[in-house]
């Protein structure tokens, strides 16, 4: 059945192709009928929505920008951004796990894996048969990902890994992982390599799971390597290139976090508009008060601007043009728009917005992640400035 939400998809106001608009409608139907009804529950319980991910696999949503020959849908990055956006509009947690799986696991396997690795691993994750997780962050290496302490030593035909990774999205539900480790003590970031490994890798285990502020329906956890044995053929791409690969991966990932922010912000506007029309004070709907109208107008303008930034970065990527700066701009702006929109949505809901009876407090907690994950807002500003100063 058709969804009842505010953007008219039959209208081509974003310069989208017919296919892109049809994908949006399809994902929206799925989001409203399957994802939204579970959103409050998975937020409350921190339960990972396994069934939803099975359904997404069946629908072909877990490998959208990956070529069909490797189990993906073979669609462009705009379609992928639209998918993340539409799901985030109703449940940011589900969208975050989808985005981490797709942009942080499927894409590096597709971009940097050799044919055998693609056949063995990419086909599994892109088709959604199994979920993927991406391990970069460590207790002492967050924004400074080059400070990786996890070590990999070559012994015979194996790489032996020791160390840990924290805050890893999908950690406890993934079967296939990509992670970085130092293969050389010297050489700085050129001493970092990337590896692919499976859940049942000897010496690999999962550590404790922290309680989260938001994005609670998205799984995360700790990866622990204690003499973990990874076959030598599981080195991703070339030795010493891991840091570069992972940074490139984040360039793409940031477009999807931007889309996540746009989705959250749009969801906030949807809810705020509906509430403002229904809630009566002083004998009329609060939507008749100019103070409320101005908040709604500001939200709409910022969402529109953020969406343009996200789609623009995606278009540049689809066209094979440089997009790193634009991806950071889209991520930075859309994340901050999401937080502002969520704040306003709670404000418009008043005391009810502060309760768990309305979804806007969840949006506020979820939105904050966008300003932290895949590079904090500060790191985005640094990346953007670096691009500017290099020009």
């Amino acid at each position, binding site marked *: *059945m*058709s969804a*009842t939400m505010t953007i008219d998809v*039959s209208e081509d106001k974003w310069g989208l192709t017919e296919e892109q608009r049809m994908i949006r409608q*399809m994902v929206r139907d799925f989001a409203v*009928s399957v994802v939204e009804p579970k959103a409050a529950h998975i937020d409350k319980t921190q339960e990972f929505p396994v069934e939803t991910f099975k359904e997404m696999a069946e629908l*072909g949503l877990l490998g959208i920008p990956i070529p069909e020959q490797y189990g993906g849908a073979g*669609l462009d990055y705009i379609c992928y951004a639209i998918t993340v956006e539409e799901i985030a509009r109703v449940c940011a947690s589900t969208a975050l796990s989808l985005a981490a799986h797709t942009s942080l696991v499927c894409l590096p396997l597709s971009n940097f894996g050799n044919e055998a690795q693609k056949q063995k691993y990419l086909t599994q994750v892109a088709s959604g048969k199994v979920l993927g997780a991406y391990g970069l962050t460590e207790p002492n290496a967050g924004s400074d990902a080059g400070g990786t302490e996890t070590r990999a030593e070559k012994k015979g035909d194996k790489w032996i890994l020791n160390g840990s990774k924290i805050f890893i999205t999908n950690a406890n539900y993934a079967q296939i992982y990509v992670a970085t480790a130092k293969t050389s003590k010297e050489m700085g970031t050129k001493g970092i390599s990337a590896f692919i490994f499976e859940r049942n890798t000897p010496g690999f285990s999962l550590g404790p799971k922290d309680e989260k502020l938001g994005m609670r329906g998205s799984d995360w956890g700790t990866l622990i390597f204690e003499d973990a044995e990874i076959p030598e053929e599981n080195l991703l791409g070339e030795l010493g290139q891991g840091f570069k690969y992972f940074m490139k991966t984040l360039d793409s990932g940031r477009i999807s976090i931007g889309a996540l922010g746009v989705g959250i912000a749009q969801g906030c506007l949807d809810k705020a508009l509906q509430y403002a029309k229904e809630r009566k004070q002083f004998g009329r709907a609060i939507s008749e008060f100019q103070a409320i109208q101005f908040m709604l107008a500001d939200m709409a303008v910022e969402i529109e601007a953020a969406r343009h930034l996200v789609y623009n970065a995606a278009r540049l990527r689809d066209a094979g043009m440089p997009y790193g700066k634009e991806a950071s701009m889209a991520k930075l702006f859309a994340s901050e728009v999401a937080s502002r929109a969520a704040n306003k949505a709670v404000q418009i809901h008043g005391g009810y917005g502060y309760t768990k009876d309305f979804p806007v407090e969840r949006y506020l907690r979820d939105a904050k992640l966008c300003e932290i994950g895949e590079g904090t807002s500060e790191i985005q500003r640094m990346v953007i400035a670096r691009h500017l100063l290099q020009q």
Partner: protein
Amino acid sequence: MNIVVCVKQVPDTAHLRFDSNDQLAQESLENVMNPFCEYAVETAVRLKEAHEGSKLTAITMGPPQAKEVLKRAIAMGADEAFLLSDEAFTGSDAWSTAFILSEAIKKNLPSTDLILLGQFATDGMSGVTGPALAEFLGFPSMTFCKKAELKSDTILEAHRETERGLEIYEITLPGVICIMKCDYEPRIPSIKGVMKANRTEIPVWDAASLGLSADKVGLKGSPTMVAKTWRKPKKEGGIKVDGSDPQAAVSQLIDFLRQQKVM
């Protein structure tokens, strides 16, 4: 097994608004597949999947933009689709629509074994297009179905929901069944389905290609005509009786019923 599903594009009632003069606000008009047709497509796809080698064809009669619902049918699992569209078809009532559909099926889909339609369309709610189509084709038909299963190449078992309860019938094919809300929901198309829908050419059959003369179709070919449409007046809110004092409440109720001349 050759299955045809007839679908209709209707305004999305979830979005409809009326302006201050009680006229439909044009900007609120968004078109979707009639919800009962979605169940018909879902049922048809299930029959196709259960019967290997079947082909599912979706057709609709409507303006050029009605192609959208055919795309949705393809995305859900139909193999091909045809749009019946012509200026001359404008204003067709249920009779004329059923006639045009029957002529298209006779001429272009002659080996059809089974036709499914939605029981009603949410815009007209006539519920007679299906039975009329069956009459024009000389096929048996069954209305108010919520489940259908093929027993053999020529026997279909269908469950009908009626005021009397559930009725299970067998129908000899070729035949027509009209689908209600089912116990299962229409599927959400997969990405592959959406891509197939977008890439599938949808041919148009017009009056000339179907050999239909203009006076047999559209307004001219329609025995019924709409005399007047109006909006149902909004129901006034009822009265609430405070039940804390039962005696007072009862006498208030009795007064009210007397006033209304019910007692």
